[in-house]
């Protein structure tokens, strides 16, 4: 009898200690981003930016707990697992993920569980349809694809456009939107070639692409693939216009490619991480001090994704429902990327710009 009671007592004590170790202070806010793998180029800075915002808010006396950042690496099932790990601590809100496919996977789970989720750099148009608990601070690629098509056809007079696209939701959707817009204003897509997401040798596809004599080539793939395509297409002798989506609007990515990137056109939203805006300067300094590296532009989207959650908690919101209502109703947030608010689909609207890569391998606004 005594032995049985001792065992029950020991078990209860163990459970109590376990639950104590998982206890969080105030509402919990999680972060999930790909910090390793090929998407870490966006995920790691976005997670750092969000972490910086949350840590600063805590140091200013806002009471909440930070969970993570959870690394979702290559995404897919790993994203689902990262979400489950965060959910053990009942977070009221989650910052991230920044990759569209991962958001399309875990966003519906957050919607089902009633947890506010704010995507950092995800741009798939279908994210708008997930539900009222899911937001994002990066606009969908609808505007970017239209801007690129208009620039190529109207400003540069392209009439034969070839497209090399990743065989994925992003590659297909971006290509489709671009093609529709280009054809509507008098352009013609002369060839579309898809490649497998894991590919790194595109020479075969490039020759077939160039066989259609294009005057512009659009790439709609991940950054690592676009870097390889850019090198290999220049190596094949193509000297015409090359167009890329906003994921290539990154100094580090362009510098890694070098001279083949000269003259490339990138459509992106009008945020400049090297801006002299005091808020951005202060962010860059804090980021450098905290992480020992210069802040890439994706870090600012991490910061902006954490901002609405912090403001909601600061105003007294304690549950997911209260945070969601606060975020949906607030007319304007003053973020690093500009003043923004969320529409009824949880999306933001930022003005788009067209950039050209100059001889110094930096970006110059041309439209």
């Amino acid at each position, binding site marked *: 009898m005594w032995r049985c009671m001792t065992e029950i007592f020991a078990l209860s004590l163990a459970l109590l200690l376990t639950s104590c170790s998982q206890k969080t202070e105030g509402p919990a806010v999680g972060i999930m981003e790909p910090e*390793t*793998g*090929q998407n*870490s180029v966006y995920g790691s800075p976005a997670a750092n930016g969000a972490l910086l915002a949350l840590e600063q808010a805590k140091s200013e006396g806002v009471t909440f707990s930070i969970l993570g950042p959870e690394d979702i*690496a290559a995404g897919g099932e790993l994203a689902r697992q990262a979400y489950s790990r965060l959910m053990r601590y009942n977070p009221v809100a989650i910052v991230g993920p920044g990759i569209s496919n991962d958001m399309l996977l875990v966003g519906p789970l957050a919607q089902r569980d009633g947890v506010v989720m704010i995507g950092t750099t995800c741009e798939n148009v279908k994210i708008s349809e997930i539900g009222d608990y899911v937001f994002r601070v990066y606009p969908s690629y609808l505007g970017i694809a239209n801007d690129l098509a208009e620039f190529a056809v109207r400003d540069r007079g392209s009439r034969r456009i070839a497209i090399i696209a990743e*065989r994925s939701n992003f590659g297909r959707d971006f290509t489709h939107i671009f093609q529709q817009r280009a054809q509507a204003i008098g352009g013609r897509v002369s*060839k*579309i*070639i*898809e490649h*497998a997401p*894991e*590919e*790194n*040798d595109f*020479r*075969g*596809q490039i*020759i*077939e692409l*160039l*066989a259609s*004599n294009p005057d512009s080539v659009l790439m709609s793939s991940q950054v*690592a693939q676009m*870097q*390889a395509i850019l*090198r290999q297409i220049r*190596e*094949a*002798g193509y000297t015409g216009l090359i167009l890329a989506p906003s994921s290539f609007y990154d100094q580090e990515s362009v510098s*890694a490619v*070098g001279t083949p990137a000269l003259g490339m056109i990138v459509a992106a939203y009008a945020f400049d991480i090297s801006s002299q805006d005091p808020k951005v300067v202060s962010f860059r300094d804090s980021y450098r001090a905290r992480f020992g590296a210069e802040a890439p532009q994706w870090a600012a989207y991490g910061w902006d994704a954490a901002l609405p959650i912090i403001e909601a908690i600061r105003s007294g919101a304690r549950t997911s429902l209260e945070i969601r209502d606060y975020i949906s109703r607030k007319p304007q947030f003053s973020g690093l990327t500009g003043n923004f608010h969320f529409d009824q689909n949880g999306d933001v609207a930022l003005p788009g710009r067209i950039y050209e890569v100059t001889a110094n391998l930096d970006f110059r606004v041309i439209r």
Partner: protein
Amino acid sequence: MNSLDLWLARSVLVIQYAAALAALAIPLSLSLRVNKFLNFHLASTYIAGGYLAYVGSKLSTDVALAFSFSVLAASIVGGSLSVLLLMLNENIGIETAPADAHLVFSLFLFLAVQALAVAVFGPRTLLAATAEQAGAETLGVARWAVVSFVILGLGCLKLLRNTLFGLRWVAAADNPSLAADQGIPVTRLRRQTAMAAGAATAFAGCLQAWDTGVQPYSNLFLNAVFGLLAGGAFSPLGAAAGCLILATVRQTSFGLNVYRGEEVLIALCLICILVVRPRGLFPTKSRTGDLISE
């Protein structure tokens, strides 16, 4: 591009891709001929060669030095690894349970190579980008080195047929017990073949990494096996021819842009070839007579 330029560019790409496939298919064919099993270890030595290229690119900024170091290291490591695994297989009775033992070892080796690479370089290097690290424009020579390497290998194989070593190798491959009765060291010949095959695939992996980077999960190894089957599994020359055919089909598939056209067209081509010629397009001649007199 005019049509002549286009035709030339396509031909060059087909030859280069066929050579990359053949660099895997020929060692596979050699191994299959002598050891009587399809040596999947070679996929791991190929990847190991890729990672050694990456190590080389990190060790020195001098491209020539780094390149020389990595191809040498890849050949030595690949050859040694292949012999070591063959000996392990022999010790656990590969003759009686070839498929199971071999597959377990192959899987183990593949995972070990990946785990080692992740431990040493971190997960970001799974897509080894050696050419990008060193500056792609300096390394256009690497893809031509693959082509030269394959042509040289095929020439050596042809020459071997007329030497004593070559005749002993053929004898050991075709009828090991009869060859052993005649004093031919069959086990040693098997290990020599494993060493040559391992060294060749690691060397090829290294060259490929210096060219475009090695992608562990690409279709290259699968296409090499398809090329081997299409050409004639026991014949290195046939395997090379099979790879050339599949490389041509692959290039054609890009122009069509059908969904997963590359995989579908290559698989259809292989099925058609095997229906018409079940032993491949260029099978070895059957050897029933006196091996030495041949």
